[in-house]
C-alpha cells in the first residue's frame, strides 16, 4: 500500500489509488468502483482545479457527516503533505502479524501482567483526583484492593475468558431484546384480520373481500447504546468490557457503541469487524490517546449534540461503563445526563469500582450523576456482568 502521506506513488492512477488507500486507513468505505469513478471524475474536471477536485471527490467518497468533515484534512494531507500526521500504521500483510493481542494491549496489559499485577496497578490511581481525600483509599483497603485486582487480571489473561465475556453479553442481550407492543398496528402479515381496513379497501370491489388486510402487534426492539470509558483509570477493565460490548453488538439488532476518554469515538463499525484481533487493531488506531485523562461530561456533550437524535428513541437503554473519575466540572455532567435522560428510557451505569467492598460513589462526578441513573451496578468481573441479567430483564 502506498498510502503514506508525503511519499505518494508515481503516476496519476497509482496516486489516486494511493489516496483511496489513505482514506481506507482512515475509516472510509471505498472500493474499486469508487476508484474508477474518482479517476474519471478527476479527468472530467477541465481545466484541472484543486478546489473543484476536492469538492467533487468529497461528494463522491464521503458517506456520512463524520467523513464529510474529515475529508478536507485528509485530502490536504495526502496531496499536499500537509497537516495531518498519521499516528499508527497497519502492517500490510497478515503473515507479519505475530500471534497474541495487538500491540496496544501490550501497553495496557503487559504479557506478564499476571505476575506483576501490583506494579501495573499503580498508574490506575486517577491523576486528576489525587488531591480529593474521599476517594483516596486508606492503606488497609489498598492491600485488599490489590488482591482483588490480581484476581481480575488473572481472569483476563486467557482467551477463554474473553469468549466468556462475549457469551455473557449475548445472554444479556437475549434477556433484553424484544418487547411486544400492546397495540395492534396494520401489518403485511398478522394473526388478526383488520376488519375495518379490509372493508374500506374492498369497497371498490363491491364489498367483496378480495384483499385481506391484517394487523399485528409489532415487535419493538429495545435499542441499546453503549458508552465505554477507555481512559487511563479504566485501563484494567477496558479490555474485557470491550469484549462485552462487542458481544452485545454482535447479537443486537439495534445497538450503537461509543468509546470516550477526552473525546468521543464511534465504535460500532469497528467492533462489528468479524476477526477479533483485527477489530482490536483497528480499535487501537482509532482510540488514539487511549489511557489518557477522562472528560466524561465533554464526551457526553458531544454525544448529545451529534449522535443522540439519531441513536436514541423512547425505547433506548443507555449503558455507560465508567468509573466516574472525571476532570470536567460535576455540574456539567449532571446537565449532560439530564439531557441524555430526556431522550432515553433507561440509564444504566456500570462502574467497575462498585465491585470493591466499601466503595461509595463519592467521586464528585459520580455523586452528581447518581440522581439520573436508573441502575447502578458493578462491572469489575465476569461474574458481576453475568449478575446483570436480572437487571436487564426488568428494563
Amino acid at each position: 500500500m502506498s498510502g503514506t502521506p508525503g511519499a505518494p506513488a508515481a503516476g496519476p492512477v497509482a496516486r489516486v489509488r494511493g489516496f483511496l488507500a489513505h482514506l481506507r486507513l482512515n475509516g472510509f468505505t471505498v472500493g474499486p468502483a469508487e476508484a474508477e469513478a474518482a479517476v474519471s471524475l478527476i479527468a472530467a474536471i477541465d481545466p484541472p482545479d484543486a478546489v473543484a477536485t476536492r469538492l467533487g471527490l468529497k461528494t463522491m467518497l464521503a458517506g456520512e457527516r463524520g467523513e464529510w468533515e474529515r475529508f478536507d484534512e485528509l485530502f490536504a494531507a495526502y496531496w499536499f503533505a500537509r497537516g495531518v500526521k498519521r499516528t499508527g500504521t497497519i502492517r500490510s500483510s497478515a503473515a507479519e502479524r505475530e500471534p497474541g493481542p495487538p500491540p496496544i494491549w501490550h501497553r495496557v496489559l503487559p504479557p506478564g501482567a499476571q505476575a506483576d499485577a501490583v506494579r501495573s496497578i499503580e498508574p490506575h490511581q486517577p491523576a486528576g483526583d489525587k488531591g480529593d481525600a474521599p476517594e483516596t483509599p486508606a492503606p488497609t483497603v489498598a492491600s485488599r484492593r490489590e488482591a482483588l485486582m490480581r484476581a481480575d487480571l488473572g481472569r483476563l489473561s486467557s482467551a477463554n475468558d474473553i469468549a466468556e465475556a462475549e457469551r455473557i453479553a449475548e445472554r444479556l442481550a437475549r434477556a433484553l431484546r424484544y418487547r411486544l407492543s400492546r397495540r395492534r398496528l396494520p401489518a403485511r402479515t398478522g394473526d388478526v384480520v383488520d376488519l375495518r381496513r379490509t372493508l374500506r379497501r374492498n369497497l371498490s370491489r363491491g364489498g367483496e373481500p378480495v384483499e385481506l388486510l391484517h394487523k399485528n402487534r409489532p415487535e419493538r426492539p429495545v435499542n441499546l447504546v453503549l458508552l465505554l470509558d477507555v481512559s487511563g483509570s479504566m485501563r484494567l477493565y477496558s479490555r474485557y468490557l470491550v469484549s462485552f460490548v462487542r458481544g452485545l453488538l454482535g447479537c443486537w439488532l439495534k445497538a450503537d457503541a461509543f468509546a470516550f476518554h477526552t473525546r468521543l469515538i464511534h465504535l460500532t463499525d469497528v467492533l462489528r469487524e468479524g476477526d477479533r484481533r483485527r477489530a482490536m487493531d483497528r480499535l487501537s488506531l482509532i482510540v488514539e490517546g487511549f489511557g489518557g485523562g477522562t472528560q466524561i461530561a465533554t464526551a457526553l456533550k458531544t454525544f448529545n449534540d451529534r449522535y443522540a437524535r439519531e441513536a436514541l428513541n423512547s425505547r433506548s437503554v443507555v449503558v455507560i461503563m465508567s468509573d466516574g473519575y472525571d476532570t470536567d466540572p460535576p455540574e456539567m455532567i449532571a446537565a449532560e445526563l439530564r439531557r441524555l435522560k430526556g431522550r432515553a428510557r433507561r440509564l444504566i451505569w456500570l462502574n467497575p469500582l462498585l465491585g470493591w467492598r466499601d466503595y461509595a460513589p463519592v467521586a464528585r462526578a459520580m455523586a452528581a450523576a447518581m440522581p439520573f441513573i436508573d441502575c447502578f451496578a458493578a462491572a469489575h468481573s465476569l461474574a458481576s456482568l453475568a449478575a446483570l441479567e436480572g437487571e436487564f430483564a426488568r428494563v
Partner: protein
Amino acid sequence: MTLDFKPLQQALAGVGYIADDGLAMALCLVVGLRRPLLIEGEAGVGKTEVAKAMAAVLNTRLIRLQCYEGLDANATLYEWNYQRQLLAIRAHERDQLSADAVERQVFSAPYLLRRPLLESISQETSPVLLIDEIDRADEEFEAFLLEILSDFQVTIPELGTIRAQSIPHVVLTSNGTRALSDALRRRCLYSYVDFPDETKELTILRARLPGVDERLAGQIVRFVQLLRREHLEKKPGIAETIDWASALMGLDIRALDADPRVVQASLLCLLKTEADLKSVPPEVSARLIGKVA
C-alpha cells in the same frame, strides 16, 4: 464530460438559491454522473429547497416523494384505479365482450395511477425526483428504493416492464432521525449542509426578501447566528430566519433595539418549542440584541 460548478452555482443564485461551492459541485455531479445525491443536515438549512431550485434551473418538472413511516412500494410506484375499472366493467356488460377483452382493457395504461417513482421514470426529459426525509421511511422501503435507483425500471405484472425513458436527477434528504443503511450511502453522492455563516445567510436573506432594510437584515442575521450558539433543542434554520425577518418587516420594525418587547414576542418565529422559548427570556434576548445592535 467536463465538470464545472461555477455556471450552475450562478444559475442557482439566479433562481434565489445560494449554494456554497461544495453543494454546487455535488449538484453538478448529479447532473454529470446521473447519480443520486444524499443531502443531510439540520432541519431548516434548505435541503428541500435545493431540489426545487434544481428543477427551476434545469427547467424541468419536480416530482416529490414525501416519506413517512409505513410508506410502501404501492404508494410510491403505481396503483390500479379500481373505481374506474369497475365502472368500465359495468359499462361493458351489455357489449357482450369476452372476459379476456374486458380484462385486457381494464388493465391497460389509462387505468394505471402513476405514483411518484413510476411518474419520474416515465418522463421524456429528466425530471428532478426529490425523495424527502428518507430517514422517516422504513428500512424495507430503503431497500426497495435502492433497487429502483440502480435499475430505473419497474415491472408491472399486467403490463410488463417499464424502462426509464430518461433517468431522473435524484435528490434524497435526511434529517438524521435514523441511521441510513451503508448500501444506500454507498450508492449515493453525499453532501452535508451546515447552517450558513453570516455572509452567506445575509446573501440568502437579501435574495429572498429583496425589500428588507440593509441595517435590519444585518442585525437579524447576527442575532440568529448568536442564537444558534445558545443551548437550544431545535436551532432555528434559514427558513425561520426568513420568517422572522418578514414578520419584523410586517410589524414595521426598523431595528432590533427599537422595541425589545415586540421583538421578544416575535421570537416565536425562531423558537419552535416551549423549552426553547423559555430558555431565551427577555434578559437573554436583550443581551444578544446588545451584541448585534
